[in-house]
């Protein structure tokens, strides 16, 4: 048992997978000697060799494409995209191939790969380093999309992602990489890939978030508790396939819901959650479902980043409005 940061937990999960499954290999830019720019792969090339922890040339489209080829031939490639803004060149291979190979061949070939990438802002990174493209990926049939919110969840969900026989996108909230430590048991136990986690129980309102925003939601819940508002906080964790039951159960109890999402508002994943609620939980609702999101603007450079990101103040405000309704 050890106190680990999220990035250390990722490192442990990768090491566990490499050690126990000879078909697992890692590939990406600077993941070898350098251990990745965030050090998620620190020490793994030394330990498992440069054939299984593979530095690649700078070409995300090719990284994704060779991962598809490797996976089709029975390997389990775990590819790293260095920063979230560089996922885009990999999308074609992900959408047109990785997500479809099993279906196209009626199961003759399959694509058990994992795409790992940092996700989101909050660390004053340069341009194109703070994107949150999860909704695009969740919209793609054939992909699973997972975003952990803590070291323990990162460990268990990443192991599950690697073991999953189909392609999984695993987005690691950059701002959580070193934000806090948590006990993580490095025993190879995975967490389920089809479950939302109730991070805090409450009666009055359901707060829904994932990744970095979970902590803003929890902080807002603390603030609101002191005002007598009892928030239930749900960590989506696996966006696709979505565990709607846990969400609906909570909304049935509270009758109110606020969704927090770092990505730009329009057609973000929060919209999907709201749509599921109005489809299947309309009669539970005592108030409109609000979304607290990034604005529909280009993610600002560092100086204005703080005003773009959903804050505790914005979340608390939305919850208060939700409590006032009806």
């Amino acid at each position, binding site marked *: 048992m050890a106190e680990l940061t999220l990035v250390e937990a990722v490192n442990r999960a990768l090491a566990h997978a490499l050690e126990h499954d000879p078909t697992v*290999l890692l590939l990406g830019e600077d993941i*070898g*000697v350098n251990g990745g720019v965030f050090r998620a792969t620190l020490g793994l*090339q030394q330990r498992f*060799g*440069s*054939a*299984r922890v*593979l*530095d*690649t*040339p700078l*070409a995300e*489209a*090719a*990284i*994704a*494409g*060779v*991962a*598809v*080829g*490797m*996976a*089709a*031939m*029975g*390997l389990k*490639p775990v590819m790293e995209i260095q920063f979230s803004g560089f996922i885009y060149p990999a999308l*074609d*291979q992900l959408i*047109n*191939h990785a997500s479809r*190979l*099993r*279906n*196209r*061949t*009626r*199961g*003759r*070939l*399959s694509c058990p790969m994992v795409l790992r990438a940092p996700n989101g802002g909050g660390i004053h990174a340069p341009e194109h380093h703070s994107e949150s493209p999860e909704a695009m990926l969740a919209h793609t*049939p*054939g992909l699973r999309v997972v975003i952990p919110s803590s070291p323990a969840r990162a460990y268990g969900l990443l192991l599950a992602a690697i073991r999953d*026989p*189909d392609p999984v996108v695993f987005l690691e909230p950059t701002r959580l990489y070193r934000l806090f430590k948590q006990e993580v048991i490095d025993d190879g136990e995975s967490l389920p890939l*089809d479950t939302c986690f109730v991070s805090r129980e409450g009666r009055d309102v359901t707060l829904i978030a994932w990744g970095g925003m979970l902590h803003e939601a929890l902080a807002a819940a603390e603030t609101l508790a002191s005002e007598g508002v009892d928030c239930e906080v749900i960590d989506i964790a696996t966006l696709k*396939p*979505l*565990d*709607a039951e846990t969400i609906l159960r909570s909304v049935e109890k509270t009758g109110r819901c606020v969704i927090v999402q770092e990505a730009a508002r329009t057609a973000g994943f929060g919209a999907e959650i709201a749509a599921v609620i109005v489809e299947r939980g309309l009669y539970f609702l005592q108030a409109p479902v609000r979304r607290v999101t990034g604005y529909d603007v280009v993610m600002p450079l560092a100086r204005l980043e703080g005003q773009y990101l959903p804050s505790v103040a914005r979340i608390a405000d939305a919850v208060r409005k939700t409590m006032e309704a009806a």
Partner: protein
Amino acid sequence: MNWARARANQALFGVCSKKFLRADEKHAAAPYVTLTKLEAGPMTIGVSFQIDFLRFLSASGELDPATPREAIDPELLLGLYRAMTRTRAYDGKAIALQRTGKLGTFASALGQEAIGVGIGAAMRSEDVLAPSYRDHGAQLLRGMTMVENLVYWGGDERGSDYAVPRSDFPICVPVGTQVAHAAGAAYAFKLRNEKRVAVTILGDGGASTGDFYSALNMAAVWRVPLVVVINNNQWAISTPREMESATATLAQKAVAAGVEGRQVDGNDVIAMRHVAHAAIAKARDGGGPTLIEALSYRLGDHTTADDASRYRDVEVVRREAEKEPIARLRKYLAARGLWSEEQERRLAKDCAEEVERAVAAYLATPPQAFSAMFDHLFAQLPESMRDQYEEARRFAPEDGGHG
């Protein structure tokens, strides 16, 4: 600085990957990259390259006397001839089926049979092919059935569930993306120490994509057993070869990745098979990737959805047709006494019968049920998709799902 660097660069993977990647690097100083230091002076030649061109059999069926013996073994040549004829018979029928509304869009390989057949004949069954949509010549030789190919173009995923080349990639429609798949497969073979080679085919248009270049570049750095063949049929739909690339050859794109690039007459199946075989043998032997440009001509429309008369001169097509690969080999075989009119008649009949049997089997293939779109989406359908599955079932037509 320059030549020193150039030579230093040949010690690939020197930095991090010594153990894994240097064992089999015996081709390190490949002859196609010649480093020459010229005399003193500010301007020196850093490196020079050459792209060779190979043709054994001329358009009129004359064999170059310098052709290696093993390339013209009678049994080999008869096999190549039969395979090309079979491909063409199938191809013509598929077009006819489309014209009568019994098949979807189809991409004919007319005039380019030597490329697919040359490659298919050069591969071993354990090798892996990542084809484009125009490579049934190679695929049929590897064991994909005509029925499977018809089922695919007939709009049914089962057509990519090949019973025989189980590890071959399905037809790739997004142009150029298959090169990376082959590179990844080749990496898997190298990692597992399997003596297998990945072969991929793309078009002259495909050679303009970034995907082609970045994947070949990566494969070259990793020195994986990969052979990339460009079927240069001179057209990318309506875009002529010279509007795809300002280069004198497409083979020279190999220079950008630091691999061997060869140009071959893709209408000469003897040379085609020979070059493919040499490249595959080199790859199997640890010599890394090769890029082959096979020069041919697309005698038909781009696909059945295209009308090439809109953008090109039929006269040019007629002239190019005179160089087509099957008649060329037939002339040579006949001259060598290896082929008779009687044999030709019999082969034509055999092919026609095989094609007819395939068509009958294709047309008799029962439709997939509605559930087919869910069954292979994941190893196991997530519980959350149950309602969608039920909705699809509820609206499936009575006949079990044929849409």
